[in-house]
């Protein structure tokens, strides 16, 4: 095989098997040669037996699939697929349960729902704060609940032989757009007329960007110690930018511009952005 497990490496960490150009030799009985062997026999017999192209194709396909018998490699699935080409469809149909809040993707609806509780539910957080064991074991059928993310992690490693590197909730770094926006907000200069719409758009954009970013960039978290705090961090980040955007809108609505953070003086609003209206409705009594 063209790959080898290397000794512990610097940089990439333990055991990344780098590409090694190696000669590959196969024995006559190797599955690699199977399709050629079948072709040999079909070609010899086809004239005598008046084989049609259709029959030949069926035989070739049958033997290929027999040899393959592809199983879905996603943990806990085990679905048998007739051929490799079917895998992509199967994956998209069964393993892309996505979170409507942060767009993270999970391979089962159960894991998705666990994520939603743990990452986006204040009810969940409240119970955790009270000391209830809320962090479910991820292995279906186990049923155990732990009090902290970290202890659940440890349970997975100890009882279910998960790798220590496994991380259920991965922190996503902000996207490039988001980072630039963060930097710009620090020294904010905007045109007056468009400013309110802009801020609203920015707020929505911020949320979109971080959503998009999380969809693109789930990443392994380096530091387990930060697990508890950071599981809240991203959500907080999102919450914070939304809150600050909305608060800017509310501020600009009722106060003189000089109080608003870093913006040029406004001449007063001629309209109230829809988001503010929506937000305000439940509040108004």
């Amino acid at each position, binding site marked *: 095989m063209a790959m080898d497990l290397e000794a512990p490496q610097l940089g*990439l960490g333990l055991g990344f098997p*780098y590409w090694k150009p190696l000669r*590959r030799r196969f024995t006559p009985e190797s599955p690699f040669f199977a399709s050629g062997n079948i072709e040999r026999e079909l070609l010899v017999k086809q004239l005598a*037996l008046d084989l049609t192209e259709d029959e030949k194709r069926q035989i070739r396909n049958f033997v290929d699939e027999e040899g393959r018998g592809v199983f879905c490699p996603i943990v806990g699935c085990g679905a048998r697929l007739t051929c490799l080409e079917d895998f992509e469809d199967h994956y998209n149909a069964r393993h892309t349960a996505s979170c409507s809040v942060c767009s993270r993707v999970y391979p089962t609806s159960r894991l998705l729902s666990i994520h939603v509780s743990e990452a986006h539910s204040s009810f969940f957080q409240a119970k955790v704060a009270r000391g209830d064991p809320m962090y479910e074991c991820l292995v279906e059928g186990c049923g155990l609940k732990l009090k902290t993310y970290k202890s659940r992690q440890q349970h997975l490693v100890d009882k279910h032989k998960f790798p220590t590197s496994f991380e259920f909730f991965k922190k996503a770094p902000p996207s490039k757009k988001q980072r630039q926006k963060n930097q710009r907000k620090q020294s904010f200069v905007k045109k007056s007329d468009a400013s309110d719409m802009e801020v609203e758009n920015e707020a929505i954009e911020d949320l979109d960007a971080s959503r998009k970013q999380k969809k693109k960039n789930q990443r392994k978290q380096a530091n387990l110690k930060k697990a508890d705090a950071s599981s809240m961090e991203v959500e907080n980040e999102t919450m914070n930018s939304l809150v600050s955007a909305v608060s800017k809108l509310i501020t600009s609505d009722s106060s003189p511009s000089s109080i608003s953070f870093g913006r040029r003086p406004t001449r007063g609003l001629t309209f109230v952005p829809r988001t503010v209206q929506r937000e305000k409705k439940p509040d108004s009594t």
Partner: protein
Amino acid sequence: MADDNMASHRRDPIKSSVGNVAGQRRRQNAITVGKERRESLVRAKRLCRVGTNGDSVDPLDSEMMIDEEQSILEAQTSTAVDELNSAVAHQGKGAWQKRVSALRELRRLLSRSEFPPVDAALKAGAIPLLVQCLSFGSPDEQLLEAAWCLTNIAAGKPEETKALLPALPLLIAHLGEKSSSPVAEQCAWAIGNVAGEGEELRNILLSQGSLPPLARMMLPDKGSTVKTAAWALSNLIKGPNPKAANELIRVEGVLDAIIRHLRKADDELATEVAWVVVYLSALSNIATSMLVKSDVLQLLVERLATSNSLQLLIPVLRGLGNLIAGDSQTTHAVIVPGNEITGNIIDVLVKCLKSEHRVLKKEAAWVLSNIAAGSIEHKQLIYSSEAVPLLIRLLSTAPFDIRKEVAYVLGNLCVSPIAPTEGDGKPTLILEHLVSLVGRGCLPGFIDLVSSADTEAARLGLQFMELVLRGMPNGEGPKLVEKENGIEAMERFQFHENEDLRNMANSLVDKYFGEDYGLDD
């Protein structure tokens, strides 16, 4: 129609007489190819429908194939065996004519339908009778018909083939040079079927000394006997034990005959001899060494260049591939970049890549990948040839098994054989090749492989991504990978059951798409 087969070459399969009526009925009854038929089609055994005796004296030989109900056939077969029984018992005048006649009747029943009534014949006790008919001193016609019956009994299911065990010593004995050619050939055919059954029977045949006489039958320049013997040998030496292959190459005159046939023989004979080369090169290091030192490589290349017969191209390509894969010392002494033969090899491999046949494309890519695993000069030779644009196109459009082999070629082109000087052991890249191939759009194909359910392919894809992430200049690697949805592809492994792949993907994401990703922009 009646005269067609008489005039045609002995070895031609019967085109018109077999199968038309049966074929139609079959197609009416079943749309899909049934299990029994499928198994019979892919077996390494062959039914004998036209005798080895060139000018058949039997006018009935050219009849349309029997298309009777299976039960009628079986009844007739039992009857025929009974007839044979009494014929064998009968002594005295005209006895041998009776025997030949009975044998002929049985043989016809066993040669004319798609699924001959072998089981009925066995149940009626055909084998001991046929063994008796093979006794020394019997007339040639008797030997021929008996061996023909045995050939077809052995052409089907495993238990039927195994039934031939009592007949093997005699069949082998009649391979001798004193036998008439058609008789020897028919016996070789029967032995070929037995050898095609499996390792156990092969070992029995070998221990009974079948190899030397069969090998000698391959030495003459031409004739159907040579072809049948070559085919039987290919079944006999296919292993997995290399003993037979080692023994064959040592038989005096065999190497010379192989060379001669590869050079001069017609397509059909060359095909069977090429299969012998396939098994010799796959199993025997001694044979590989001897073959490489001779003209065989050159002859294989010439056949690849000039022939368009798929039947011939498959074993020739594979033989070439086995020789190149077999032994780096000897082959790299021959396939030196700059030698004419080396350029010729690349040319014929390109021809195979352009072929419409899946097997040729896949195995040609495999051979190229092994050459690309050689020296830097080998890689440069392939890189600057017509192969690369073809490979890049195949990486996006071809079926999966071909794409995987193509991936091996392209990746091998990008990594140097020089041992890494840095302490971390990362292989040295050939930057020019990597940049060019990525620039010509090969990255999406590799990322596709990462997403496949095949472990080996996913590994290949991840390994290539590491090369790109590490090697592309100006830190372009991560951006390129991101653009082609490489990050998503790697994220799939979070919940993948294969721990190695998970770790590989995770380590790449960590290193190249970590917190610092993009901050320098």
